[in-house]
């Protein structure tokens, strides 16, 4: 790593002031140190934000839960009530990385992490995401890449918390220019859909403060498929959430990770499922709708049937929790 200055911020105001030059926020540091060690990002100053007050709490009211951005992934995994109320969120957190990483990784950092595309992560490759002219994955090694994209970069979002938050229709509260801005998961990643240089919609200096999860969807489920059984990125991940009234789905939402620069959601599938009784046939039809416009590349076509299977399994898991 190149040398940098270091400061600990004790208020969001001072954190923003400190980071304003060529500074970066430091929380868990898992993604940041990976980027710094490969010289993919540079910073003159790291601003440790872990002492910021009030951001490391899990709180709940009647209609929504609030998870602070400094809450660690391990704290979500170990939270007994989260496991009961949002089992999908628990399962997503438990599958993230390894125990050592979950112990320090924060919710904010998981949401804001950069692309895992191996062309982006290679320090000698000047790809589209690094102001180059070309996406090398498009005609290259693209087995881990997207089935959907709104631009020429095909690196997918890999935050499994984002996938789950999307299914739960959670809102991220982001501090931007001193004002709190509310962003759905679709909005939080829309920037990466449009702009090959972006990993999300956050501007420099933006700080994720907390995530609010409505309690309307009483059931949730998460599944992922990876090359390895543990400590691996998802090839495809799927989260689903809904309420069930008289055996019928109410306000169902399905989101997929690792197949698009944004948590992949298809409103047509959500409205199709609304009011339906879940069975194999409805789950299959929903999966068809979700993957209808998939554009597989040379090496990632396997993701289509894999995603199809995992959507069905996740939906049936939602039912199985009855």
């Amino acid at each position: 790593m190149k040398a940098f200055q270091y400061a600990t911020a004790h208020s969001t105001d001072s954190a923003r002031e400190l980071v304003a030059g060529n500074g970066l926020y430091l929380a868990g540091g898992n993604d940041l140190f990976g980027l710094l060690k490969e010289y993919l990002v540079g910073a003159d100053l790291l601003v440790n934000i872990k002492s910021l007050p009030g951001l490391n709490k899990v709180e709940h009211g009647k209609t929504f839960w609030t998870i602070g951005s400094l809450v660690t992934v391990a704290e979500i995994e170990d939270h007994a009530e989260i496991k009961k109320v949002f089992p999908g969120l628990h399962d997503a957190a438990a599958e993230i990385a390894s125990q050592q990483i979950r112990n320090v990784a924060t919710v904010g950092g998981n949401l804001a992490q950069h692309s895992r595309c191996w062309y982006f992560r290679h320090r000698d490759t000047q790809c589209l995401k690094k102001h180059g002219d070309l996406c090398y994955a498009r005609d290259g090694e693209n087995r881990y890449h997207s089935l959907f994209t709104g631009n020429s970069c095909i690196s997918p979002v890999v935050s499994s918390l984002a996938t789950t938050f999307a299914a739960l229709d959670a809102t991220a509260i982001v501090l931007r220019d001193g004002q709190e801005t509310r962003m759905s998961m679709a909005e939080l990643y829309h920037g990466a859909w449009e702009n090959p240089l972006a990993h999300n919609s956050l501007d420099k200096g933006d700080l994720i403060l907390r995530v609010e999860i409505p309690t309307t969807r009483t059931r949730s489920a998460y599944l992922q498929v990876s090359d390895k059984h543990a400590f691996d990125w998802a090839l495809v991940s799927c989260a689903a959430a809904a309420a069930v009234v008289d055996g019928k789905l109410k306000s169902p939402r399905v989101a997929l990770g690792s197949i698009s620069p944004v948590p992949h959601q298809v409103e047509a599938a959500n409205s199709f499922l609304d009011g339906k009784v879940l069975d194999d046939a409805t789950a299959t039809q929903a999966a068809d709708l979700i993957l209808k416009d998939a554009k597989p590349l040379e090496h990632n076509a396997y993701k289509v049937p894999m995603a199809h299977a995992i959507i069905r399994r996740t939906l049936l898991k939602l039912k199985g929790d009855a």
Partner: protein
Amino acid sequence: MNNPEPENFGAHSRRTFFKSLGTVAATAATAQVRSVAAELEKANAESVIGPGAVPVTLKVNGEKLKLTLEPRVTLLDALRNYSSLTGAKEGCDRATCGACTVLLGDTPVYACQKLAIEAQGYEITTVEGLAKKGNLTKVQQAFLQKDALMCGYCTPGFLMSVTALLRKNPKPTADDVKHACAGNICRCGTHPRILQAALSAAGVATASKTEVVNYV
């Protein structure tokens, strides 16, 4: 027999070189007559420090280490290259292999992906801090009895992960051990023995031979 340790060969072996650096750093830090509390306060203040070396005080295995480090120095480098604690190993330096696992309090973390300056104020335990007065811990004994190591490079990391697991969950299942140790890689592939050792240290009946062989 009076065989010199390998590191005593020559005046400038890698290890003595780094050890001497550590001594210089410690002496320099001590020379700056400043209480630990004041140093911590300085480190926690909102003032911007670095990029040059600054005083950093770590509490490792119950002892205070006063070092002078640039903010970019990782906890792993501080332990291995600026102190004499080479127990935590550097494998990947990318939070992937687990050889550098140490405990902050009771929590296992990758020392390669943590700045030393951030680790101030924590009780840090490395593999050197497990055995008290030369008596191996139950986990260490179990690793010996089950022959849970081949080259041994990953062993300090596994010992820390298993130790942390048993503190949190004294009677783990085989799945609990696999989940807790997923962030440690044994390149020699002795994962089944490590699983047996962890369960044996916890006094949990070891899984059948078949189950252990089918380690995934």
